[in-house]
Structures are given as C-alpha cells and as structure tokens.
C-alpha cells in the first residue's frame, strides 16, 4: 500500500505510487464535458471515475461537514465526494479526490481547504486531495497536467460545448424520445475512441469532428413549432450541474421551453484573459501577458472554428465568440471584474438578449458574492437598456425549495409568452420602440 507522504506545510501529497493504486473521484459538474475529461485522464494512466450520484445523503454529508454559510456548490461538491468515499463502493484507503480551483478572489478558491477540513472532521484525513488548476497552486508528484493532457482537455471542452449546444436545440423537438441522448452517446463514442487512437487532435480533424457531430444531430427526427428559448447563465456550478440546479434543463423542457446554455469555452478563455488584462490594468511582466495571449489565442482559434462550422452548416444557432461577448460589456462592467464569473456572466446575458433570447434564468448560490454585482446587480440596467429583457434570478441553497424556484421560473415563462405575443401583434409598439428591436435568429 502506498505510503502517506506530506509536504513541508503538512499537506498530504498524491504520490506516484498512489497513481498506480488509487482511484480518483471527480465530482460532477458538466455531465458531458467532465465525462470526456475523465476518459482522457484514463488514457493518461489514471484510474478515475466521475460521480453521477444523487440523493439526499449528498446534501446531508455536505451540511454535516461544511460550514453552513459556505456556498451551496461547496456543500454539494464536498457532500458528493464524502458520500462516495463512505458509500462502501470504494476502499477509502485507495481513493483520492479531485477538485478544481480557480484561484480568484471569490470564496470558491477555498473549496479545496473546506474539503480538507471536512475530510478531517469525517475521520478521512488520509484521503489525498488533488487540485486541478491553471494557477500553479499545489503540486503533487503523482499528478501532472501534461501539455498533452491540457491540449486534449481543450478539445474536450469544445466537443462538450458543441454537443451541448446542438443537443439543446434538438431535444425539445425530438419525435422519438431518447433520440437526442442516443445521439450524444454516438458522438461521445466516436470522439473518445478516436482520441484513444490519437485521432481528432489536430485542428483539421477537430473541424471534421464538429461536422460529424452536427450531422449526427441533424439526423435526429424533429417536429413542432419553435418553442420559447430560455437562456441559462449563472455561477458556473449551479449553471451546469443538474445536482446544483434541481435539474433546471429538465424542468425547462417539461415546461415547453428550449434551454440555451452558453458553453464552457468562454469561461476558460475568460480566466486566461483575466491574467492578460491584469497586466494592462495594474502592471506586471510582459512575458506573463505574452504567454496568456498565446494560450488564449490557441483556444480562441478553436472556438472560432466551432462557431464557423455551426454557421456554415446553418441548421443550429451558433453562439457568439469570446470577443463578441467582450464587446457587449462596455458600459456595464470593466475588464478588471474577474472574480467568480465576473463580467462574463453579464456578457452572456447581453449576448443572449441581443441574439433573440431575452428570456433568461440567472442562477446563483444563495448569497453568492460576485453575483450580487454581475448577476442581480446588472438586471436593472439590462431592463433599462432592453425593456423586453426578461431575466429571473434564482437562488439555490440547501433550504430553498424546488416549488419556489419553479414558481418563479414559471412566472418568467408566462411573461415570456406574453412578450412574444405582444411582439407578434405589434412588432414596433411600446417597449421595443426605441429602435433596439430584438433580433430573431
């Protein structure tokens, strides 16, 4: 059995030996993206599993071991990990936990420390915790993000984004229930088996894969009129994780809406861009800025390729690229607003409103600090500038009941339908008379 080794600050390390023996457990956030990342990690020689667990015990463990005033995502992520360790499915002495760390001024950078405190309280202090971050925090001898892995991860982000994007546009209209999910499976299978063979990792083959994915979803038989589109933005965990948002996508579908969920790529570029722009705002080394720009340029090129492929085909709504989003933010927030989702969250709302999706659910954990500013804090101004915008802010936390959340979303939907009706009847009247007619895409 692997020996427990600590660094000089007393942090338990994940050793090379552990890499052989231990199973890495990853909490679920973006089901598709993470599933793919996990498969990539497996090809890198790690034993790794993404947790798909649900149920009350996750919340119970979270509340038991995490400070109750901590944010909801921390409670769920840590609850899910501890629940898994205690489930009996794994040998607790042969698992390590993986958690992402963004390293910004938000509380979220402290999740890993909360997880360690929780493990200590739960008598599981011998379970190593691995931080996955791009800030160079916490090294582990047995866990390295190789350049090859990072490259694959970037590809996975885009494959995840395009699948999420196209699937969301097909699922509400599928004739045979389950077709969309089967299409997702098909795509994942060929992407992953391709990756295993080292295929799909060049720019050219990536575009070919994008095209193939589009074809798979185009083949899904659909019917019915255009449904009300509803954008989903928010704090990154509750925005994407069904566990965090009470299965919001599912609820929107059941209410006859089409969810529009902006992808993960922008968040990745955003976090790189923050470092770049910090140098402009505060000063710093040009080399740091140059490296950031190269990396951002690399990711942006992939993003443009994805968007161009979608546009070329024309069947599906293509999202704006990072620079489009950035362009919207002027007059709302400064480039320096970077904690949490920062200006990107507001930019996503603006992009949605400007591209025919004025109905938006803005999700946030109860008391989320950055969202006071960039979420709830911007809705007033959005309404001033775009009177037809219809944004509802929903708080998620262990005590918030689903019925309250659903009721508020229903209200937004009722308003959306009424707005759509007024819009049809009197396209130039009232609210939209200021010349900023919403575009329909």
């Amino acid at each position: 059995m692997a020996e427990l080794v600590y660094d000089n600050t007393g942090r338990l390390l994940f050793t090379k030996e552990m890499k052989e023996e231990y199973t890495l457990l990853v909490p679920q956030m973006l089901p598709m993206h993470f599933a793919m990342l996990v498969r990539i990690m497996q090809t890198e020689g790690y034993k790794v599993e993404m947790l798909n667990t649900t149920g009350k015990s996750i919340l119970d463990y979270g509340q038991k071991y995490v400070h109750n005033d901590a944010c909801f995502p921390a409670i769920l992520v840590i609850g899910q990990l501890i629940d898994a360790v205690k489930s009996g499915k794994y040998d607790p002495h042969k698992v390590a936990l993986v958690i992402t760390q963004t390293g910004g001024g938000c509380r979220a950078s402290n999740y890993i420390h909360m997880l360690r405190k929780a493990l200590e309280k739960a008598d599981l202090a011998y379970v190593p915790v691995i931080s996955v971050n791009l800030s160079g925090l916490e090294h582990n001898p047995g866990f390295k993000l190789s350049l090859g892995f990072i490259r694959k991860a970037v590809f996975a982000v885009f494959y995840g984004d395009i699948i999420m994007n196209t699937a969301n546009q097909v699922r509400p209209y599928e004739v045979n229930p389950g077709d969309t999910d089967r299409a997702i499976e098909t795509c994942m299978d060929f992407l992953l088996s391709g990756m295993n063979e080292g295929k799909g990792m060049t720019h050219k083959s990536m575009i070919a894969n994008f095209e193939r994915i589009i074809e798979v979803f185009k083949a899904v038989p659909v019917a019915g009129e255009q449904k009300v589109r509803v954008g989903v933005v928010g704090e990154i965990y509750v925005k994407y994780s069904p566990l965090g948002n009470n299965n919001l996508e599912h609820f929107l579908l059941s209410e006859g809406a089409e969810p529009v969920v902006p992808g993960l790529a922008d968040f990745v570029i955003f976090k790189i861009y923050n470092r770049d722009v910090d140098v402009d705002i505060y000063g710093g080394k040009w080399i740091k800025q140059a490296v950031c720009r190269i990396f951002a340029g690399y990711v942006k090129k992939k993003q443009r390729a994805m968007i161009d492929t979608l546009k070329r085909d024309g069947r599906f709504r293509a999202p704006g690229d990072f620079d489009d989003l950035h362009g919207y933010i002027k007059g709302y927030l400064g480039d320096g607003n970077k904690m949490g989702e920062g200006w990107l969250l507001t930019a996503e709302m603006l992009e949605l409103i400007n591209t025919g999706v004025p109905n938006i659910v803005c999700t946030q954990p109860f008391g989320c600090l950055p969202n006071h500013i960039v979420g709830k804090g911007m809705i007033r101004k959005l309404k001033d500038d775009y009177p037809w915008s219809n944004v509802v802010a929903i708080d998620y936390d262990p005590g918030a009941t689903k019925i309250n959340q659903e009721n508020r979303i229903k209200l937004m939907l009722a308003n959306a339908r009424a707005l759509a009706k007024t819009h049809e009847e009197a396209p130039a009247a009232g609210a939209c008379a200021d010349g900023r007619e919403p575009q329909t895409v």
Partner: protein
Amino acid sequence: MSLRIGIDIGSTTVKVVVLDEDNKLLFRSYERHYSKARERACETLNSIKELLSGKDVKLVITGSAGLGVAKAGGIDFVQEVYATAAAVTQYYPDTDAVIELGGEDAKIIFFGGALEERMNGSCAGGTGAFIDQMATLMNVSVNELDALSLNHEKIYPIASRCGVFAKSDIQPILNQGGRKEDVAASIFQAVVDQTVAGLTQGRELKGKIVFLGGPLHFLMGLRARFVETLHLDGEHAVFPEDGDCFAGIGAALCAADYADHPFDDLLRKLEESVDAANTVDTMPPLFTDEADYAAFLTRHDANHPPEADIHTYAGDAYLGIDAGSTTTKVALIAPDGGLLYTYYHSNQGNPVAIVLEQLKEIYRLCGGRVTIRGSAVTGYGEELIKNAFSCDLGLVETVAHFNAAAHFNPDVDFIIDIGGQDMKCFKIRNGAVDSIMLNEACSSGCGSFIETFAKALGYTIADFAKIGLFAPHPVNLGSRCTVFMNSSVKQAQKDGAGVEDISAGLSISIVKNAVYKVIRAASADDLGRHIVVQGGTFHNDAVLRAFEQELGRNVTRPTIAGLMGAFGAALAARDLHLEKSALLSEKALHGFTHSAKPVTCGLCTNHCSLTVNQFDGGRKFISGNRCSRPLGKEKVELPDLMNYKYKKLRALEGRGSGSGVRGRMGIPFGLNMYENLPFWFEFFTRLNFEVVLSPESTRKLYIKGQHTIPSDTVCYPAKLLHGHVEALVEQGVDAIWYPCMSYNNDEGIGDNHFNCPVVAYYPELLAANMPVLKQTRYLDPYVGLWRRKDFEKRIARMMEEEFSIPKKETAAAVRAAYDAYDAYLADIRATGKQYVEYARANNMPILVVCGRPYHIDPEINHGINDLITSFGFVLVTEDALSHLEGYESRKVLNQWTFQSRMYNAARYVCTQSDMQVVQLVSFGCGTDAITTDELRSILEEGGKLYTQLKIDDINNLGAVRIRIRSLMAAIDARKR
C-alpha cells in the same frame, strides 16, 4: 361564453371565484385550508354545485401551493402574479404598481411599459405568516394587533429582512416595557420596509398603487403604514373590495384562454387527485412503539431536584427569576436545591406585572416560616426586574444555566438551551463558559416557531407535539431558518404529508438547526460527553428524542428543563451568602407601581431608543442605552481605537494643503474607503481638489438609497453605499471618486491580497443601479495601489485624460498620498501600542476587535465599541496588531488583505495573557463563512476564548451583551 372559475391556492388559504360572461362576480370565498388545500377547494366547489353542476366551465388554478394540485389533477394552471396582473388590468387599467402580500409571499408588480414583477426570493419573511407569528409573540389576535397599531405614538426600528430578526428586536422592547401599541405599528412598518426594500430593487414605487392580498385586505394598520411610507393619497392608494381574492379573479379571467370542461369532470379530477400518492422526503419515526417511549420517559424522569414542600418547610430560601424573552420563570429553593416553589408562564409582553404577582404569591406561601436570604435575576429582562424589585444579583443567562446544569451533572461539558425565542449552547471548559453559540443568524427554529405552526394547523402545542411522537414517516424539512421551513412545510403539505409527520419533521428540523446551523457539529463528540439539555422546548419529547437520535447518544434532561435559568439564578443567590436580601418586602410590594415611556436619547449620534421605567417612590430605570450618559453620569472614556480611527478618518475632508481650485471631489464614506481614504484625501487635495465626504451613516441615510439596492442579501455595509452616493449627488459635488479594487494593499501576511468581490466591484453596481449617477460625473476606474510605480504611471495617465492634470503633478501627489497612507497606518499601530500600555499600567483587560475597517462605522456596529469599553475593557483593533506577526500558512486560502490581518492579530493575541478577541461579522458576509472557523481554531489552539458578534442593520445589542458578559465571566473563571 361559459362560466369561468378561478381557484387560488395560497400557502394558508384557498380562494374560489366564479365569474359570468360579463366578468360579474357570481361567487367568491376566502378560507384557511389548514394544510388541506385540495380538500378545502373540493368542499367549496361542492358547496356551489347547484350553480355549476351539469355545465361546461373553464377552470384554472393559480397560487403558490396550487401548482402541485393542478399537476396532480391535470387541471390548467396560471402563475399567480400573471393572474393578478390580468385582474388588475381588467379593473384598474391605469395602475402603476401592485403590492400583494399573501400568507408567505410578497410581490410587487410594476405596470406601464413591459410588465415587471418581483417576488420575495428564498430569504424574505415580512408577510402574513410573519404577522401571525408576531401576534402570537405578543399574545394577541391578529385583529387585536391591528387595533393596537392604530394607537401608536412612535415606531421602533425592527429588522425588515427576516421574521427571526424582527422577533429578537421586538422581544427586548416588550421586555423593557415598550408600549404594545408602538410595537404593533412597528411590526407593520417592518413589513412595509421589507416589501419596499426587498422588492423594488432599483425601481421606485410611485403613481397609482393597488394593494392586494389577505393581510392588506384585513389589516387597517398595515394599510396605514404603507400609505404613509409611500406618501400616497386616497386617489393613488387603491384597496379593492375583493382585494383578498384578486389572484382568483385573475385566474378566472385567464381561464378564457383555456378549453371548456364539464364541471363535474373537473370536480371529480380534483377530488381524485386528493388521494394521489405522495413523494415526500421522509425519515425514520421517533419512537417505534409505546414501550420504547416509556423507557425513554423513565430514563429522563430520574433527573429531578430534591423534594421539598413550601407548605411545611421552615428555614432559609433563595429566589431565582429568569425573565426570558417570551416566558418568565421563577424558582424558590432551599439551601440543598430542593424546589419550594416554581412558576413558568408566558410573560405576555409584561414581565414586571407577572413577577409582581408571583412575589406576592411567594410571600403569602412563605408565611412566617421561610426567610428569603438572597435573590438573583437573569434573562433578557434582567436589568428591568432587578431594578423593579431590588434583587441582590443580576447574572448573565449562560452562567445561570451552567450553575443549574452542574447541579444535575457536575461533569457537564456541554449545555444546550432551546427556549421560546432563542437557542443558546455553550461548552464548559475548565469550569467556565466557553464557545457560546446563539441563534442570532437565521435559524431560530425555536419553541415559538412550533407553537405558531401548531396554532396555524389548529392544535395546541402539547397536542401537536404528541401526535408527532409515533408519526410513521416524519417529513424532512431541511435545516435552515424558519422562513425556509415555512416553505418546506408548504411543499410537504402540497405533496400530501399528514399533520403528524409534519409535527415530527418540525421537531427534527429544530434539532438539525441547532446541531448543524448553530453549533455546526460534525459528530456527537464535537459537543461533549456530558450534555445537559434545557429550555422549555426540550419538554417536548419529540424534540428531545430527535436530539438524541441526531447525536446518537443519550443526554440529560432534568425534569425542570424549562426552569433551569431560574434555578441557576437561585443557586447563585444562595452562593452570595447574604445576611439579608434587598428584595422588596411584602409590604413594599403593595405600594408597587410601574409605568414605561419610550424616549429617544439625543446626547450623541447613536440616538438610542430608551425606555424610561418609573416605579413607586420615584425609582427610575432606563434601558436601551449604550453608555452611561442618559443615566446622568459622565460617559467614561476608556481608550477605544475604533473611536479614534473613526474620528481621524472623518476629519479627512476639505482642501487639506491644496487650494481646492480643481473642484469638489466627492468620496463615499463606506467599505474600503475606511482603509484607503487617507490615501485618496492626500492625493486629491494635493491635486487641488476639495474632498467632500458623504455624511456619517445613519438609518435615514440608508433609507435614502434603499430603493436602488438590487440584491437584498448583500451585507449592510454595502447597502449603505447607496445612501452615501445619493447624499453626495445632493451635495452637488463636481465628481464622485469610487474606484474598483480587485486587489488591496499587499502587507505580506497572506497568500494573496484581494478585496472581497463585493468591496471590489460595488462601485460598478452603483453605476448600474443608481439613476442619480446619470447627473453627476462618476469615476469608478480599476486601480491597484500595491504596485506603487505602476499605479503612479497609470493614474497619471488617467488624471491627464480626465482633468488635464500634468503627469508630473499627479506623480508628486501619488508619492505624497503613499506617504500619508503609510503615516496613517503607523499612527494606528503606535496609538494601539499606547492603548495597550495604558491598559497594562492601569491593570485593565484588553479586547481586540477583529473585523473589517468599515466596522468602525457606528451605524454598522451600533455602538458595540461603547458597550465594550463600558464593561471596562480597553479596545484595540486588528490592524494595530497584525504587523506584529509575520506570514504563516493557514489551513484556508488566506487571500484577502483585511481577513489576513484578523488571522495575524489573533495569533498575536494568543501570545498575550491580558488580551482576548471578539470578531465582528456582518450578516451576509460570505468571506466570514471561512474566516470565522479559522479564527476560532487559531484562538482555541492558542488557549484563548472565541467570541463572535454578528451585526446587521438593526441595533439589538442584547446578544452582544450576553456574549461580552459571558466572556467576562469566563475570563474571571480562568483567573480563578
């Protein structure tokens, strides 16, 4: 067209409306459903069967609890706000806004342009259920409360965020003899403030406003508060005749868009759905059978005090009084602790009258045989009762409870007391009270909460508790504050949970609240091995059982669990070993009179709400004060670094060393400006600006900006900024300077040096939400002060662009500004050192207040510093000590400058025998969810006590007093 039926199923009531072809109201009803919403609706429909049977009708359900019913029955549903808007548009087409209060919902709908609506989110209390709860608290019916409010003379500030806070504000007012009329009106005012503050979110309420919903329909006092607050006249305040069932009317109107169905089919669907299977989240039962319960009772009933009988006893006796928040408890004991007399009753808002009556009774029973040799009083009403009846000793609740617990279990190491309104738990370490946890945050799921629920469901509290004991499937209601629990109950009711399961679920929730929310324990071992439970709520066997189940271990519940405070006080009176008690004699009681009058103290800016109690013989007792000045004594001025810093910063306005020719630069006096102002003042005055500070924070200033606050859960210090900026605009400044700062100064003691997201970006939130900023030049650029050279370059460019100031001039100003800031820090440190030396020279204890720089704002801390020094402490702040320790890695990511200072100050305190720490925490502060645990562990590992003081927009210093006095008692005990 066929008849249209609208059914509005709310959290507590069902409204049924029938409209004919001409929108004429054929039928309307408004009935409480006592958690049987579907049944109630069916009954009502059955009662009007004659009208509808055999016809095709359109039926639509609406309401917060209607969604589930509609789904289960396959009946059409419209969202209730939408329905309400439909009705308003029909009957009052020129409406500008609707304010609708329901059982648990509060809504504002804005008309004009696109329809905009606001509902209370997951944190909001001021609604019908809240008013019910408050009425229960005051022991009046809701209608009596209403009548009382109409005769008010003054309004007390009562927390408008959440019912829990309001309760803890009201209680001290009542206990200190405030008038019921005034409290009643204040409760309604709190509802109004809650609605206006929480829901307008940047949009002003003006024009013609329609008021809807049950509470606004029935309560004239509430109407009056709204009309007055919003400055409405008769024409602009509309109270429709059917305002209590408007959503129902709206649903009926909306029904026009839906298909016809035979009425009898619809009724059948609704009736059948009543029996639909539920999917409630449930837990194991409390007791499996009667035998289980009997064994449990036997075990607990063994913990009782010695037997004694007042009718035969002769000798010495000691009196203890616990003037609690909702109840008054009295215990008269013999020297061995034997109980001669006990009393436990709701204080009905007037503890003085109750105690008077009890003392008379005790004297009567004592006859000539028993001599009272000592008397002590504890609890919220301690000071009042002590002064009224001349008791020998007043002691803090925690110490009283510890005395009592130790009597039953000398090894006790953990005490939890759940009373009517409050929950107290604390550890006993080395024979002293330690680590006090009170439920002042958001979870007083205490006794009165169950009681209110019991009443709402039509039960007495005793019966309600009893039916829960053997409930087969207790409902899981979560473990957060009562407002959340209300909606959890609503959901459980919707899903068809029975009353017994809800009762058991509530008991379990209260326990979970205590364990996970207040104590935050991970396991039973975290609490202790010898746990004594007390307080009236633990007389409820369901709660006690749930507690033992949750901890997985047996605890001690004395038979006098509800009397422990009084019992402990009596023991303390005994231990005074007095020859003679000063307690008013039997004779003196006959001439006893008491009257109370509210006054606002005008001796300083704190403007304390005082209550002046007059007793017979010219005796007087003033409460609500923070210092001794209103008592006619000179204010004792002990060294107080918070006060020192505040005065120093406030003086930073005007032209300084410059000429002021470049104009008047406004700086809002809030958040990080409490740290950075010395820098900016020097910077701008050097550039020949006149610096204009916004006025000192007051509640009035807060209210001025309240309508532009977009997020009602952000901290109070941030909310205050809206008022500051409004005031600056009013002062007619030429520009306002309030830069965004992701990063603060790097003092080299943390892993990073961020500001929290709210401090960092609040300037941008103000720009987006405050219409007045369109009139004034508002500068909120991103700056970083920690890279001095880079900053100089960037700000020079900015000043050139904005004000055409030559770069050289700016550069010089920057250097002077850094010097000024450094000098400010050095001065704080030197002054702190001087205060510490003063304390040591005079042998006084030192209290280090750890918080944020802006916690020195008297409107934010409500004069806590005065209170602290009035107890004889010398006060210094974290920033005066943090430089005395270097960097050390922490178990958390130590990435915020202000927070890093607290860790370092705490580490330093651990090395000093005469220092203790109190931490100030603003409600809603997200970063303190991290710092509190870390600070506690630093201090406890260093052998120090940890005391946390939570503060919000309301100044209730009751909890602060308990903590500081307990801290003092613990310091004393440690000395011994």
